[in-house]
């Protein structure tokens, strides 16, 4: 793969807020954390976010918990607001987001946007053909499936576009796949213009695995 050093978000086209977080079934640990954490105190000092999203916002791939470090603050804030208002449904995040004041949500979003977490070596079970397909979908799209390039909105090489779309490069494949499936099945509906729901309709299991696996391996040079 090419080294990825560009970060020219301003060139990008879209001005919509596309949400890309899943609603996986909460793990036991998450459920406990949600039940026991005092939100008011947490916001002030030791945020409960760390329990799942990591001390540096690196996320927890195995539990489908997204990486937040360096993510667009506008995007993160929209997600927190959507969790709180119920327009994005996730039983864990709903409680946390609801407990935060508007000011605190802004602060949390800004904090994670400013974080920089190292990328752990991304391993993938995809073979070269699958990765090539992932790259094709990311960079070019598919006329047959009527799916445009992910990069069209998510920035060159999936680096994200502030104010508009979250980064995909370096995000965990597990999280991205569950997000796409949530859009596909219509359980997640907080995408502007139903754009992610439309895109997800065009992708089958193999394509979802290919494109999410591809992006998961693309983080190190971009953040």
């Amino acid at each position, binding site marked *: 793969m090419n080294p990825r050093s560009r970060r020219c978000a301003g060139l*990008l086209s879209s*001005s919509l807020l596309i949400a890309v977080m899943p609603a996986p079934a909460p793990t036991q640990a998450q459920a406990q954390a949600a039940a026991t954490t005092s939100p008011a105190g947490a916001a002030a000092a030791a945020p409960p976010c760390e329990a799942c999203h990591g001390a540096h916002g690196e996320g927890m791939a195995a539990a489908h918990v997204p990486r937040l470090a360096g993510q667009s603050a506008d995007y993160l804030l929209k997600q927190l607001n959507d969790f709180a208002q119920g327009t994005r449904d996730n039983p864990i995040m709903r409680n946390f987001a609801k407990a935060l004041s508007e000011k605190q949500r802004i602060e949390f979003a800004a904090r994670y946007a400013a974080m920089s977490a190292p990328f752990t070596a991304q391993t993938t079970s995809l073979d070269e053909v699958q990765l090539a397909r992932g790259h094709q979908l990311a960079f*070019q799209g598919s006329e047959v499936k009527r799916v*445009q390039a992910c990069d069209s909105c998510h920035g060159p090489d999936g680096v994200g576009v502030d104010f508009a779309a979250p980064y995909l490069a370096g995000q965990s494949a597990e999280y991205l796949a569950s997000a796409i499936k949530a859009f596909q099945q219509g359980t997640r509906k907080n995408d*502007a*213009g139903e754009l992610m729901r*439309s895109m997800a309709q065009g992708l089958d299991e193999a394509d979802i695995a290919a494109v999410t696996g591809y992006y998961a391996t693309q983080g190190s040079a971009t953040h």
Partner: protein
Amino acid sequence: MTQRLKEVDVVVIGVGMVGSMVAKELAAAGYKVVGLERGQTRFTVPEFQSPAIHDELRFDVRKALMQDNTREAITFRNQSSQTALPIRRWESFLPGTGLGGSMVHWNGQTYRFHANDFQLATRTRERYGKNFLDPDVTIQDWGVTYGELEPYYDRFEYLLGTSGKAGNIKGRIQAGGDPHESPRSREYPTPPQKEHFQGAMFRKAASSLGYHPFPQPSSNLSRPYTNPEGMKLNACVFCGFCERYACEHYAKSVPQTIILPVLLANPNFELRTGCQVQRINLDSTKKHATGVTYIDAVGREFEQPASLVITASFALNNVRMLLLSGVGAPYDPATGQGVVGRNYAYQTMSSVASFFDEDVIINPFMASGASGTLINDFAGDNFDHAGLGFIGGAFIGAVNTNGRPIQYHPVPPGTPNWGKGWKKAVVKHYNHSVMFSLHGSSVAQKQNYLDLDPTYRDAWGQPLLRMTFDFPQNDLKMAAHVTSKAVEIGKAMGAKQVDGSPRKAPYTVTQYQTTHNTGGTVMGDNPKTSVVNRYLQSWDVPNVFVIGASNYPQNASWNPTCTLGALTYWAIDALKNKYLKNPGQLVSA
């Protein structure tokens, strides 16, 4: 050496919007159809994907999607006493090329004309008297009425999925829509796009002056839509790269997103790209077409015999094709005789720039090609022209389509044209200015016409089309009047400086105005003043149909595409249900 191919039922010249629609319907009806496209095949993926498609230098400045005028230009002059010269770089208007045609790079503005427009000569005479107009003005009725076209307008809008708000459904005025519009049978397929800030400012100001603002009907869709052909479109993201560009989002209604995949899947249809049609071939009687002759991309010449020839290229190229083929008598401005090339008209574009204080943040870049707000209070015949000395009008709107960095930099009059002073002014005004478009009608007049150039030829050795055009006095008066009204709206918006620029003569091809070139193969009910009958069938060669904005006897106050879509479905209906069942002249002269 010309190779003669196997005869087919129908050959379509140009596979753009009209060509795709006609070919789709006729192939589906069981006819063998060949589509000849001079340009290349192209689709949303991969050709239209960003970031490559957002290259302003390539597409906006260098016109990458347009007809290649190093091979095929148009010559231009203002008056017939001058010598026309080839347009070496498109500026004033931008004819497209390639699969999908000019629609690929359109803005998606999807207006209907009003009932009055189709009977302009009759209605003008009735309302303002016989001698109201300059005798050189050659406006005429279309030979078809709005009422007849309404179902076809409806079908076309539902093909596109157009986003808008109806103003008049079956005679009932609808709040939020355009109360001046002629009745439509139902609401738009999708709701209007979101209003941008300058649109909201315009709405408020126009309402305060007693006008009737409404959202621009847009074929950059407000929400996902599946059209009757089963094609799915996405919602527009307001990237501000519509006109002169192709859409990467499957959000703009163009042949590739609304109909081409359906057409291409039909085995009755064959697409041939890179094919430059040289002429429609006629038999010895000159009353019957035998097919077309074309040259392919490597220079081989073919004859494609066909029972029916449909010319579906850009308006100007339709005219040229008939002139090159000897279909219909060429217009002679000296005698007023002849019809092909007659009644060439355009669009009379004026503008008003309003400059605000720096605390008014416009963000002009957040827009689609049709997400504006406008009024029709000064369009068409929606106001009394008695005593004004002109007919027609313009819509006035905050319909700015983009804030692209190379081309969009509004500055007040008196700003230096370059250098430090200019740069400073651009920085100061870029995000605090509102540009109104005044989209004006265009009457036909005797002196404006199209013919073949006696000197210049294209890369295949054929004469270029020659355009002779200047703005009629009627339209200049209209532009001055409507501009003065638009300036008042700018002032009501609270601008600290408002600069009105009514269109002035002479017409120049070196400044962008609009690609709404109309006329030259005018439709009508009299062979002496029209090239095709009301079904768009040639009066002279009944197995040739000509479909394009070249059919418009004169141009109205709105963008022409929606009316062309309606006419196309109207002609398809006549082809399928009348002509092909019993080939021959459909209208007796």
